[in-house]
């Protein structure tokens, strides 16, 4: 696969932004600048960027509890994301939702969900709406390996196939649901194999290979757009950090982590770009640009106001 220079640059910027965002948030948590909890996607950025760049801007996306990379890939302004994580008024959700509920409907980002499971049928319901709309749009839906065991996964995939809905299911198999390895929770070697149970195609992809992701999702997206129904894609990847801020990662070895870090999706994308003629300095400049904007975002967010209780209450009902 060959990308235009501009697209490659743009994608790298997204990959860097996603990585920097998570690292910055992690640090802010450590320093007590953010309260609550969060789920970071360091190491999984390739899945998000690859998948989203295989679809159109006016295609829709639904994310998971580990959704920052998806949002960034789907053009969410990190300023508004940072505000949301800090519970501030300019945040995407006015500070009502926080990390687990970032959405950006304007950018066709239908957002994250804090409950494991229901986002799959919700995304499927959006797909039903898209089919009714007849505007040839599709939705891609990200969820974890652990989430693929939930009942609603089964219910939703069955209906999506029955009704040939325009949706691409992307299971990010990062090897663990919190501390529990996928071998202990999934009764088959590949989650993609479960597609057989719904008569839809199932595809295993190297989730750390942005190009492989683009290809698989691109094909599935076309299928969905044609009216041929859903596809289940399993993207094998790895979460570098703990599940959430309080995780000591006692359930896995440092060697295993090192092995996966060697397969860093960003590094692999950088190699492609260097091969494609980009200079090291150009890459560094892109990184710097992302980093600078992130600092701006943090500063902006720290100074931003909080909504009043009255305004919060006004949001409960339409």
């Amino acid at each position: 696969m060959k990308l235009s220079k501009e697209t490659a640059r743009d994608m790298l910027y997204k990959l860097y932004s996603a990585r920097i965002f998570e690292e910055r948030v992690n640090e802010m948590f450590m320093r007590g600048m953010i309260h609550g909890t969060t789920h970071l996607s360091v190491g999984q950025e390739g899945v998000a960027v690859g998948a989203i760049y295989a679809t159109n801007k006016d295609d829709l996306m639904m994310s998971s509890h580990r959704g920052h990379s998806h949002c960034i890939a789907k053009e969410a302004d990190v300023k508004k994301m940072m505000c949301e994580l800090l519970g501030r008024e300019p945040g995407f959700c006015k500070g009502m939702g926080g990390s687990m509920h970032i959405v950006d409907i304007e950018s066709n980002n239908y957002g994250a969900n804090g409950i494991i499971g229901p986002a799959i049928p919700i995304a499927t319901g959006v797909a039903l709406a898209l089919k009714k709309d007849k505007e040839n749009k599709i939705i891609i839906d990200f969820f974890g390996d652990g989430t693929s065991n939930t009942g609603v996964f089964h219910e939703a995939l069955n209906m999506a196939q029955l009704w040939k809905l325009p949706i691409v299911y992307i299971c990010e198999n990062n090897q663990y649901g919190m501390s529990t390895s996928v071998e202990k929770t999934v009764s088959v070697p590949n989650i993609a194999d479960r597609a057989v149970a719904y008569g839809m195609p199932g595809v295993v992809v190297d989730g750390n290979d942005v190009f492989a992701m683009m290809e698989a999702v691109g094909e599935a997206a076309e299928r969905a757009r044609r009216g041929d129904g859903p596809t289940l894609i399993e993207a094998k990847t790895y979460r570098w950090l703990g599940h959430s801020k309080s995780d000591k990662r006692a359930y896995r070895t440092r060697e295993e982590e090192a092995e996966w870090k060697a397969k860093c999706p960003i590094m692999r994308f950088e190699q492609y770009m260097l091969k494609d003629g980009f200079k090291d300095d150009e890459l560094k400049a892109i990184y710097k640009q992302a980093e600078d904007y992130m600092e701006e975002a943090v500063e902006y967010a720290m100074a931003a106001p909080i909504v009043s209780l009255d305004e919060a209450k006004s949001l409960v009902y339409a």
Partner: protein
Amino acid sequence: MAVITFKQAITDALREEMRRDEKIFMMGEDMGIYGGCFGITNGFLEEFGEERLMDTPIVESGFTSMAVGAAMAGYRPIVEYMFSDFVTIAMDALVNQAAKQRFMLGGQVKIPMVVRTPTGSGSGAAAQHSQSLEAWFCHVPGLKVIMPSTPYDAKGLLKAAIRDDNPVLFFEHKIGYSVKGEVPDDDYVIPIGKADVKRAGKDITIISYSYTLQKALKAAEMLEKDGIDAEVVDLRTLSPLDTQTIIESAKKTGRVLITHEGVQNYGVGAEVAGVIGDSEAFFYLDRPIKRFGGDFIPIPYSPELEAQVVPQVETIYEKAKELLK
């Protein structure tokens, strides 16, 4: 004005709204050829087609969440469960998703959806098909809960629910389906959140809703024969609750009996009693606030016992008499 059944009123409201707004569609089990478990959607398939009358697999959880998604994306789904007891399977979709998405997303979306479902005991279907679980949903910010007792209210409130931009639960009593009453020929809606004094009186206030309200009205007739003038308040909407009408009636009569079929413990009557007991009406009360709900027992299959565990006309009458002693 034609006299029709409660069931017909529901069917009419649904048909008229489906005709009015193309964005409305229905999801549920066996709603097509079968017309739904209670025949509410008989003939709809012919008129609206499979796209707007979707027969789903038996997955209340999955299709309710799908309705949430479709609502986020601009549609107005109406979901049916065959029996209200099956809400247990869709609680996450309703409580963590439908009720909260708008709020959690800072107002970016609205969730205009209606869940309607037959409820209550009296059909001999035993403990898993006879419950009245409405109180649960009234405890959830983001939801509205409606439970009418007459064809007129049913039609007007169902239309209001369908036109509302929030998730609304609409409970229809399965025995109450056969209640008859006058319904205007023209389009009308009844505002959500307004109780209705179904019978004005001065000696005692009986507060109820849904099919038990019908029993309360009969009990009021019995009381009348004893020379007692009972006021009967129909809550109609349980959330938001019309506290003003409740308080006014309590002030007026000074004696309050709250009755419903749902289990008394932690039921709707508790909230109504709580509202009265914490209001100015407190100072007007001559007697403790009497609650008379369903017994603390799952609904038994045996028909004789089934009838004994929920309020009936005679027992409501007796409770009222006690309060008047």
